[in-house]
């Protein structure tokens, strides 16, 4: 059991390292070094940089030295929480990102909960009542959920709510709350705005998970232990909920490891359509403006977030499946 946790943890660390390399690569990718870009930007805004200042900057970031030295300098600053300056905003990256990373996490997590909350009962229903009207209806709905990319869904919902109610459904806060400091009222405002984007984000994953749950449960329902449970005189509901559903939860739990990155990815896109104050719109803006420290940091943070999510889902899996727990005994 401990070996399992340790192995998963090490794999997670390795993934984080890979993501950090990818983030660093993204920072380095634009042609020219970024000090050039920085200088050009400063010059364009009317505050030219002298050659000595530029050299100081280059030295600070280790430019001109081999890549791995540059990576080392960057990563050693990153672990102390110094992610560099945003060129566009001319403020520390951490300051620019601010609450947005937490709102991203919140949105993804809410979508995860909705995905679970919908997929579990619907999956059970569809499997137990296979080929019923409800099963067909959910299957169809599931296909639509898979077929409509979530940004399109966001667009369509936005269009119709505008058309029918004249309301703009975007945002996570009411306009008067956006700049307020955190308070209970603001949290409540957030809670009111969160469900719609979360549901939109959750739909595709829910559709997939319903299909997985249904298929797994159908498999499990045919297994002999279900007959054993029935032969004990348990009620049908009890039989199904205690035994096959429990077994079908297993792949359900392991799937979350892939669901979470998927949701984080999706949140980037729908945030842009719905104008949500997550890191998504910031990332796209940063990439378009080649504000590379900001962009690299966001990619890194999102990556770390998904790795942590994956690790947690592994722990959940272990808790669900006694076989994994007892592997090392």
């Amino acid at each position, binding site marked *: 059991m401990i070996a399992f946790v340790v192995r998963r943890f090490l794999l997670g660390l390795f993934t984080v390292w890979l993501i950090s390399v990818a983030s660093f690569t993204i920072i380095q990718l634009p042609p020219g070094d970024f000090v050039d870009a920085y200088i050009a930007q400063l010059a364009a805004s009317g505050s030219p940089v002298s050659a000595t200042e530029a050299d100081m900057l280059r030295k600070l970031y280790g430019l001109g030295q081999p890549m791995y030295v540059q990576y080392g300098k960057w990563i050693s600053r990153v672990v102390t929480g110094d992610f560099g300056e945003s060129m566009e905003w001319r403020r520390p990256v951490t300051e620019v990102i601010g609450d947005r990373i937490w709102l991203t996490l919140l949105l993804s997590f809410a979508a995860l909960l909705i995905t679970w909350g919908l997929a579990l009962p619907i999956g059970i229903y569809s499997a137990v009542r296979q080929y019923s009207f409800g099963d067909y209806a959910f299957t169809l709905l599931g296909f639509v959920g898979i077929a409509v990319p979530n940004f399109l869904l966001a667009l369509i919902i936005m269009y119709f709510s505008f058309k029918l109610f004249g309301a703009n459904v975007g945002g996570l806060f009411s306009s008067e709350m956006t700049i307020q400091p955190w308070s209970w009222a603001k949290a409540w405002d957030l809670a009111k705005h969160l469900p719609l984007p979360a549901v939109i984000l959750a739909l595709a994953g829910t559709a997939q998970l319903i299909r997985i749950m249904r298929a797994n449960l159908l498999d499990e329902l045919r297994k002999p232990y279900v007959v054993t449970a029935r032969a004990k*005189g*348990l009620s049908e509901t009890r039989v199904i909920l*205690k035994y096959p559903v429990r077994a079908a939860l297993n792949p359900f739990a392991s799937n979350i490891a892939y669901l979470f990155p998927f949701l984080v990815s999706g949140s980037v896109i729908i945030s842009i359509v719905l104008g949500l104050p997550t890191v998504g719109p910031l990332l796209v803006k940063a990439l378009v403006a080649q504000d590379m420290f900001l962009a690299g940091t966001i990619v890194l943070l999102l990556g770390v977030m998904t790795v942590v999510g994956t690790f947690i889902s592994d722990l959940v899996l272990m808790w669900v499946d006694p076989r994994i727990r007892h592997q090392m005994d």
Partner: protein
Amino acid sequence: MADPILSVRDLHTQFHGREGIVRAVDGVDFDVFEGRTLGVVGESGCGKSVTARSILGIVDRPGRVMGGQILLRPQGGGPPVDLATLPQAAMRRIRGPEIALVFQEPMASFSQHYTIGNQITEAILLHMGLGKRAARARAIELLDMVGVPQPDRRIDEYPFQLSGGLRQRVMIAMALACDPRVLIADEPTTALDVTTQAQILDLLRDLQQKRGLAIILITHDMGVIAEMAHDVAVMYLGRAVETGPVQDIFNRPRHPYTRALLRSIPTVMARPRTRLPTIEGSIPHPFDRPRGCAYHPRCSEKLGAVCETHEPPPIDTEHRQVRCFLHGGIPGAPPGTQP
């Protein structure tokens, strides 16, 4: 002989699939008596297991019991109850306390997600009105009875931590949890090696003697039948083609199918390196069941056209029943005449 605990009369169970109807059980009759073992024998696909599930009312969809009676004589006398028409809620009180089931795959028959203690006490809590502590004590007692060593420790283990033989013992303990009067054992030893097989059969016989259990032992193994059964029902394509006491069936088999099954048992008496006789042909696909006597395409003693066109009726002679025109029942001929 006393009245049977359980009588199955003209049982029909069918599966209505998209491709057609499968008559898995197509008119089965037999009786089960207290303290005796009825061996139900036949090749795979003959409807043995579906019969067992029909009795418990747990046939998987799209299967359904379509006709016949399953009569259970209540404890302490009274008119028999027909399980085939009993509502689900009442049926659930039969499963466990009256009739219990032991399965062929001890691994797959347990859920891997709960301890064996959890899975045994569940039925006790449900049917016997005991508290948690008492139920656990009873579960330990049961494990001890079926010969599980260190039952107070084993009770908290998961099925995947036990060996195959031990698992089957636990399975039996679970089946006996609520003191059932009838135990259906569906191929209880098929998945086990020979020594473990013998131990499990010994255990079953022992429990039967101590508790007066009626056992329905379903198997394809004539050897197991010879060792365990008092009475035998030979099934072929959803029908009991021959029933009777075990000595009669083994010594004077009357149906050609029974004879063929008996010939195919390897014995130590046989000359070494001779070919074991096998039954010609294979079981027909359930969708195209042959007309007439279902066995006629493989029968070595076929009488002729009558076997291909007419179904042989059951012919009764003291304690025995056989469905074969060799023993009468040819339409048009006076009853009882031998061909």
